[in-house]
């Protein structure tokens, strides 16, 4: 798979030139392949938000580069909007950005800014609404009449409608009820599978990350502390805990069993996988008891 997004010695300092300079992102080198699903985790203030805002040119790096398909996104600062269409960004609590008279118009805001034709705008907006599971009858309503969960969906659709090559989501499930979380996450997952684009998901829920991510980036103190396959990252439970993070509960249980000498695999991420691993042990025990 070709590399789509790359950072080279990416550094961002807040308050540069004053006495309160703070390095939020510190020489980060990443290479993200096209079609990957990347999870980003890190303690509050670890630099996650600053990092992702540089990936679509909302923040300009203090030093270092962001390369989109090998090209520096700040090569022509006047054309930074094009980068923003290609690298879509869903902020935390995106429902706060809704402003149009109808949901459909709001979803169309992005595509309209891209300068597409009316039919194209309509097609993309409707398609995006379908991806996030918006009922068609809601499209003509005012976004302010929707429920919290529906607003969230509408706002996410507004970014998906631009059909970005890379989609970045900053805690898209924060504040939703458990069922809403599961549904939204599944929708993001199926969107990723269908469009085959690249998705970066920032989340505080290790369970969510374990469920969907191919690789996980761990941010700590502005640095990329780990960037590896999900199983490999969650196998390093102790290190993660030292960074104020944790591993999914089921992974923790399985790691503990392994430490106690049970023959289970390293880095078990999901309940299903754990059941598969534990079933033979149960069988064994039954045999022992029978003897």
């Amino acid at each position, binding site marked *: 798979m070709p590399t789509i997004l790359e950072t080279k010695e990416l550094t961002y300092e807040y308050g540069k030139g004053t006495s309160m300079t703070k390095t939020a992102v510190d020489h980060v080198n990443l290479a993200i392949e096209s079609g990957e699903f990347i999870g980003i985790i890190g303690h509050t203030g670890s630099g996650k938000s600053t990092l992702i805002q540089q990936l679509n040119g909302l923040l300009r790096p203090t030093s270092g580069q962001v390369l989109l398909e090998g090209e520096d996104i700040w090569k022509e600062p006047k054309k930074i909007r094009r980068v*923003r269409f290609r690298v879509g960004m869903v902020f935390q609590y995106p429902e*706060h950005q809704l*402003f149009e008279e109808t949901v459909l118009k709001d979803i169309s805001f*992005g595509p309209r800014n891209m300068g597409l034709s009316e039919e194209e705008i309509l097609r993309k907006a409707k398609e995006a609404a379908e991806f996030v599971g918006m009922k068609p009858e809601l499209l003509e309503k005012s976004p302010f009449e929707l429920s919290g969960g529906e607003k969230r969906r509408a706002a996410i659709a507004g970014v998906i409608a631009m059909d970005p090559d890379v989609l970045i989501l900053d805690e898209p499930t924060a504040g939703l009820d458990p069922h809403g979380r599961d549904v939204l996450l599944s929708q993001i997952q199926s969107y990723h599978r269908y469009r085959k684009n690249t998705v970066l998901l920032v989340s505080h829920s290790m369970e969510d990350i374990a469920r969907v991510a191919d690789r996980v980036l761990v941010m700590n103190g502005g640095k990329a502390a780990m960037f590896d396959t999900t199983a490999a990252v969650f196998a390093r439970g102790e290190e993660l805990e030292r960074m104020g993070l944790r591993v999914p509960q089921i992974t923790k249980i399985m790691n503990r069993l392994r430490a106690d000498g049970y023959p289970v695999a390293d880095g078990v991420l999901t309940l299903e996988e754990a059941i598969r691993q534990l079933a033979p042990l149960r069988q064994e025990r039954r045999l022992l008891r029978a003897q």
Partner: protein
Amino acid sequence: MLSNSTLGQYFPGNSIIHRLDPRFKLLLTFVGIVLVFVAGNFFSLFAVVALVVLAMGLSGIPLRQYLKSLKAIIVLVLFTAVLNLFYGHGEVLWQFWIFQITTGGISNAFFIAIRVISLILFSAVLTYTTSPTQLTDALERVMKPLKVFHIRVHEIAMMMTIALRFVPTLLEETDKIMSAQKARGADMESGGAIQRMKALIPVLIPLFVSSFRRAYDLATAMECRCYRGGEGRTKMKSLHATVLDYRAVAIIVLFAAAVVACNLLLPARLM
């Protein structure tokens, strides 16, 4: 990006000026501003300037910050100064058509410029060294006599406190919404004046909506804690005057006396 202006900003510290009772500070600043207008010649104006410089020095805030506060009004100062250049009598130095610059005009221009600058600096000393909460607290106390006229002083002070409290919150919110709309390709940096104003709609509407939401939340939270206006309400931090405050009053009185004396005894300014 939205926090460049320093006017009305508070710099925490522990200087003599910081430690003054905010009620006294408010009143003394008011007296200072009155003195600016009372000063009738350059000698008394000099006394006022000395007072400002003294207050600025004692506040322990770098001169740079004070200069920043002047940046916002420099155009106004220059404009009034230039305008005043053409008013006044005295020896004519330069003439063109109906315009003429006289010695009196030049003295006028300087006088006005120094007046406006001292005015701004006086208020800068107050706002730089007094936190918004202290300031509204002081205002509430100072305006208390207005209750006779059925003005709801406590409610007004509470509104001011809340408004000030939410300025940074709303700035942050604006920044966030702007980023979110920029991420959807909103173009806020190019185009003419009308286009730029139109580009602000996607920012202003969400901002309005969230302000209302915050207002409702805050009202509910206040009611949950049994807030019901100023009637019978006591202060957690009641204000007490100290020796420091009386010394400050004494200093101001001395300066006021100096200003009045200079006005009366020394020759009036050229007009």
